[in-house]
């Protein structure tokens, strides 16, 4: 049934929201543009001097022209390293190469010589996790100076640090998901294993090299003097050592060879999910800007969002009269059948039970689930505790964690407290998680948290006999609030890679379409769960 929109597009409220959110989207696009293309002149000149292409030009050559590229975490590290490592120093995303869906990981040699910062590695590990979960072949464009040594304690030893890259590569290989690496710069030390662990690799003469220790390190260690080409150049590895497979004269030729390699990969058998002819939403997606209120505390009807994302704005709502603070139902996105769970207020006992029930339905039918988050948490208070709100929330978490069907989460607006978990937050293995620019995320709301923290400070001082004027209390509270706001923003979230990237709301439908399509490479198991506390 088509959703009947109740939105008044001529209202003052709509216009004010529209202007506000449109401006946020414009700011987002400006930041994205900057992270993608703006580099200090000296770095661009260095690339030219080294006879190397800029990473975005490499991607243009690699991808099939006119096909979409779902770039992930474009604004990773935007709040770290003084903002000097745009995109965390690499590019990841799902694109089409020789007619095949692949995950692409490309080092960005124009950012600190492609050095791996802790967030660079986090972004690569995440890209490879996505490749494993969705059975996507990987194309690596290698051009990295190696780990950023001053930060080695934050990137080397732990479970999800650099070692995880190579572990993930080995797991991909073990599961029969092929990888091709193109060596476009020096792959030194750990970086040397990326091409070595790929089933196929191509290396460019003169600029490409693979070695565990570069010439200066070799000289220091053994006194042996050796050139880059003699130590680990294209001819050494393709003729003598067998570490690399295909020599190439130029980057262009290397990319052409890699495209031809990908063309040999078998096309995957996609999961059979009911699919109908795609149809655009009946309501204009640009009206999404007018729906999201300027103030995060103001409630809005998530059906209005659904109506501007799904095919024909058609939505089969499940239990429309029960647990109404959670909207559940079936729809199609780019023709793919999906189940949608969307917050329309705080989670009560009934809405939590409805969620757990609906998730079981989706698993029973083998239908991917889309979570649209705008959640302040589970209801608190004596009445709700007596009715077992924690127990019912636990059921929801049990269902979401135990789900076998692909889950995709969109952080539409707020994401606070345990509601984040029940609605498939980052920890719950959503295949993809995207955020909108005005999204806020934290264990509790910024103002509540600032009040609690300020209160503790005031009491401490009172114990030492000090009383504070309202101005002094405000002086304590304001910086806490400011820092809390910064850390709850979508930009901080995406900087830390708590998501797979920010979306302009109007692009949500396309991103979901690509994400669902990618998720269908992996078979879905029969539903089975842990113990639901009844």
């Amino acid at each position, binding site marked *: 049934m088509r959703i009947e929109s109740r939105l008044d597009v001529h209202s003052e409220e709509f216009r004010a929201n529209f202007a506000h959110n449109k401006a946020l989207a414009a700011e987002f696009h400006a930041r994205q543009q900057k992270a993608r293309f703006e580099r200090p002149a000296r770095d661009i000149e260095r690339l030219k001097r080294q006879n190397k292409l800029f990473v975005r030009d490499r991607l243009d050559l690699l991808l*099939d*022209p*006119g096909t979409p590229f779902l770039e992930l975490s474009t604004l990773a590290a935007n709040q770290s390293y003084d903002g000097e490592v745009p995109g965390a120093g690499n590019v990841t995303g799902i694109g089409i190469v020789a007619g095949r869906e692949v995950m692409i990981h490309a080092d960005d040699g124009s950012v600190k010589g492609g050095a791996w910062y802790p967030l660079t590695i986090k972004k690569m590990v995440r890209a490879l996790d996505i490749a494993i979960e969705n059975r996507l072949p990987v194309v690596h464009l290698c051009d990295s100076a190696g780990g950023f040594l001053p930060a080695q304690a934050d990137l080397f030893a732990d479970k999800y640090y650099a070692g995880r890259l190579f572990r993930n590569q080995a797991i991909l290989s073990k599961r029969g998901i092929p990888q091709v690496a193109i060596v476009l710069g020096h792959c030194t030390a750990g970086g040397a294993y990326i091409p070595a662990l790929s089933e196929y690799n191509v290396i460019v*003469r003169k600029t490409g090299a693979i070695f565990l220790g570069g010439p200066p390190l070799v000289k220091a260690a053994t006194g042996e003097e050796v050139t880059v080409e003699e130590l680990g150049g294209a001819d050494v590895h393709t003729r003598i050592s067998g570490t690399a497979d295909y020599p190439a*004269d*130029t980057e*262009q030729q290397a990319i*052409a060879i890699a495209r031809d390699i990908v063309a040999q990969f078998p096309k995957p058998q996609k999961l059979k999910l009911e699919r109908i002819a795609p149809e655009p939403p009946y309501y204009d997606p640009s009206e999404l800007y007018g729906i999201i209120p300027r103030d995060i505390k103001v409630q809005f009807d998530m059906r209005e969002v659904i109506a501007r994302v799904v095919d024909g704005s058609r939505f089969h709502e499940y239990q429309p009269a029960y647990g109404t603070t959670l909207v559940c139902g079936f729809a199609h996105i780019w023709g793919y059948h999906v189940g949608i769970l969307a917050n329309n207020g705080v989670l009560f006992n009934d809405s939590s039970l409805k969620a757990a029930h609906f998730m079981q339905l989706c698993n029973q039918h083998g239908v991917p689930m889309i979570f649209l988050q705008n959640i302040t948490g589970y209801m608190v208070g004596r009445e709700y505790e007596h009715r077992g709100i924690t127990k019912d929330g636990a059921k929801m978490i049990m269902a979401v964690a135990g789900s076998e069907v692909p889950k995709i989460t969109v952080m539409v607006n707020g994401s606070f407290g345990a509601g984040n978990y029940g609605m498939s937050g980052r920890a719950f293995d959503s295949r993809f998680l995207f955020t909108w620019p005005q999204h806020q995320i934290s264990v509790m709301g910024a103002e509540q948290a600032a009040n609690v923290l300020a209160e503790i400070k005031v009491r401490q001082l009172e114990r030492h006999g000090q009383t504070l004027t309202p101005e002094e209390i405000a002086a304590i509270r304001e910086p806490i609030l400011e820092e809390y706001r910064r850390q709850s923003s979508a930009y901080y979230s995406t900087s830390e890679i708590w998501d797979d990237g920010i979306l302009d709301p109007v692009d949500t439908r396309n991103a979901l379409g690509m994400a669902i399509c990618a998720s269908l490479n992996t078979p879905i198991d029969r539903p089975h769960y842990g113990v639901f506390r009844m």
Partner: protein
Amino acid sequence: MRHLFKLDNQEHAVWLTWRDGRYFLLIGDSEQPVALEGAGGRDRLTVGNVTVPVLAAVDGDDIHIHVDGITRTLRYLDPIRHYAAHSGASVDDVILAPMPGTVVQAIVSPGQAVARGDTLVVIESMKLETAIKSPRDGVVETVHVSTGMTFDRSAPLVTLAPATGA
């Protein structure tokens, strides 16, 4: 990466993309809807709003197209070969012996221009004669061996003058 074709000595980078149930030709910054109807004999080619009868014959990498009483020949440029040829980078300047053996005949001499695939030296090893061929177009700088000489594996046989940039 777009497909490359050569027409009248000029290269064109084009791509065919499928969208909304039809094909579009990407060329330069423009995009034209295209269609080819009919099978064998006379086909009808549509580009933008114009539909014309067309005859096409494919001969290896050459495509002969007859439109409006004129026959033109397009050549498909294989990207792997194309981008290597443009590089100017050398495959390797020094041609090494693949195995130990004896020189049957040194065919080229210093200063001589050679094309890719030309025989430089003929060697004999393990009762087999092997022709050592030039890996690229170039000019012979040095011939390290003479007829009857024996050599070890990886001994230099011929050095080509370094390739100049494209």
